[in-house]
């Protein structure tokens, strides 16, 4: 697609793209390139000499069981966050899609958590579920559960998933509601005339028609769980206890903080880069085509 009516100028267009181009080259491509180059190099212990080692850093990385666990953990977190947040948001959106009094008020009261920053989400949830002073922990302990997410890895993981899913409800709700409102009422009425009860109508008509939205949100939620959970994890558990809440992004961050292996840290960044490229690719390839109909 191209415009027919255009301006003629030799220098002006370059001047107009220059600021963005400069930012992109200096702060995006240059560091990304550095990461790729670093990932093929090995530095000696004193940082005096570097040598080209081909894929050694990658081989070492994938041989490290801790890294492998981190990959699995990240995928598990993504899956758990996406499924729990999507299903709850869908339930709410289906309810809010009905012609109810006060439906705009409901929408307002459900979408604002989108604006809460991940580290704040972390602070809010760790406070409620803090082992010694949390408001909810009291009831958990009264119910006989030995609740201590600061010591128990599984409990810490479930806490992260819970908090991350909570934040994402509003986003999913908003897009589900828009998707539901785009479904023509006539289709649902036709199904009703054919005698389909509400539950059946939902599963045979609404749900299939909603599949593009569901797929889109699935990808967005996975990307969210990969990257935006960093703030939640950092304020709640710092990747601990042990490494039970260390996702891939968190691992790049904390390995780098220790300042140890430059090559390994760079290789980790490159692996993440590839994952983002794949996810973005899926999003563009399939979301545009609207899945089924």
């Amino acid at each position, binding site marked *: 697609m191209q415009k027919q009516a255009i301006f003629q100028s030799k220098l002006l267009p370059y001047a107009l*793209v220059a600021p963005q181009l400069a930012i992109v080259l200096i702060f995006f*491509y240059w560091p990304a390139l*550095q990461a790729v180059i670093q990932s093929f190099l090995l530095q000696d212990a004193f940082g005096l000499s570097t040598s080209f080692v081909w894929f050694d850093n990658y081989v070492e990385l994938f041989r490290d069981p801790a890294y492998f666990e981190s990959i699995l953990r990240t995928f598990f977190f993504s899956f758990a966050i996406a499924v729990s947040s999507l299903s709850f948001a869908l339930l709410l959106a289906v309810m809010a899609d009905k012609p109810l009094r006060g439906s705009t008020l409901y929408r307002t009261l*459900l979408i604002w958590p989108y604006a*809460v920053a991940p580290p704040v989400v972390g*602070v809010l949830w760790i406070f409620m579920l803090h082992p010694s002073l949390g408001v909810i922990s009291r009831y958990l302990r009264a119910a006989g559960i030995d609740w201590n997410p600061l010591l128990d890895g599984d409990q810490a993981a479930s806490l992260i998933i819970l908090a991350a899913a909570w934040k994402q409800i509003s986003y999913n709700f908003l897009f589900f509601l828009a998707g539901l409102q785009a479904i023509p009422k006539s289709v649902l009425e036709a199904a009703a005339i054919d005698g389909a009860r509400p539950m059946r109508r939902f599963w045979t008509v609404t749900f299939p028609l909603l599949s593009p939205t569901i797929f889109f949100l699935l990808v*967005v939620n996975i990307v969210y769980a990969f990257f935006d959970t960093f703030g939640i994890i950092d304020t709640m558990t710092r990747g601990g206890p042990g490494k039970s809440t260390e996702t891939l992004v968190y691992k790049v*961050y904390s390995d780098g903080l220790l300042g140890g292996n430059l090559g390994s840290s760079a290789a980790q960044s490159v692996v993440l880069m590839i994952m983002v490229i794949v996810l973005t690719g899926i999003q563009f390839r399939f979301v545009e085509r609207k899945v089924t109909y």
Partner: protein
Amino acid sequence: MVEDEGIRRYVAHFILWIGIAIVAFPVYIAIVASTQDNALIANGQMSLLPGGHFFETYYQTIFVGTSGSTREPVGNMMLNSLVMALLIAVGKIAISIISAYAIVYFRFPFRMPIFWLIFITLMLPVEVRIYPTYKIVADLHMLDSYAGLALPLIASATATLLFRQFFMTVPDELLEASRIDGAGPLRFFWDTLLPLSRTNMAALFVILFILGWNQYLWPLLITTRDDMQTIQVGIRKMITTTDALTEWPIVMATAVLAMLPPVFVVVVMQKLFVRGLVETEK
């Protein structure tokens, strides 16, 4: 439809209120905690009703800060966050709109490669280039500065795409008309295109402001001085000290203050927010 009458409707109201309660509960607890006495909270005996320390706690939070390790008034952190969020939002919009203008309204060598260079940054979020970017910013002596906080995040493939899409829908007649009036490219941009883009810019601004205000990983890395901390980084540092020393009412007041501006924007500018969210995700 028939079944939507009566009992089903009550069920819907009921489920929605439960949803709202779940969504609001953590924030309610934060507000309540920020008005109570620290000793009570630390003993695990926090009440679920507001206490009497509202003014005292918020005054201390905004103007003094915690008495512990990071003695930085939260008011100052909020100012830093505000400057960063505004720089990011305005900067992204400004550089994106002019590059989209160049790409749509001019033919020049390397036009498409430049477009792709901008587009592909979608796949390079800050998380995948953390330390190399840090090093560049350090080499440019931009650690602990507003420029360092904002500049590396300011490129925007999404905004550029959005403006490009919008410009494509602007009728060609407008350009021809203003050309007949003797307007050059800059004049056309300023007098015709910019006013037409106002709603798009506003919707984008709402989203980008929230995005900027909520930045965490990047400010965490490049701010070392306490007086350059943003509120998101500051709140994390407040709970690093051993549990017994954490001043929970102040932490919770800070959480409330950190939520206030972006939530306010979402609620008050809901139409623009929804529009911006849907358009940036397309």
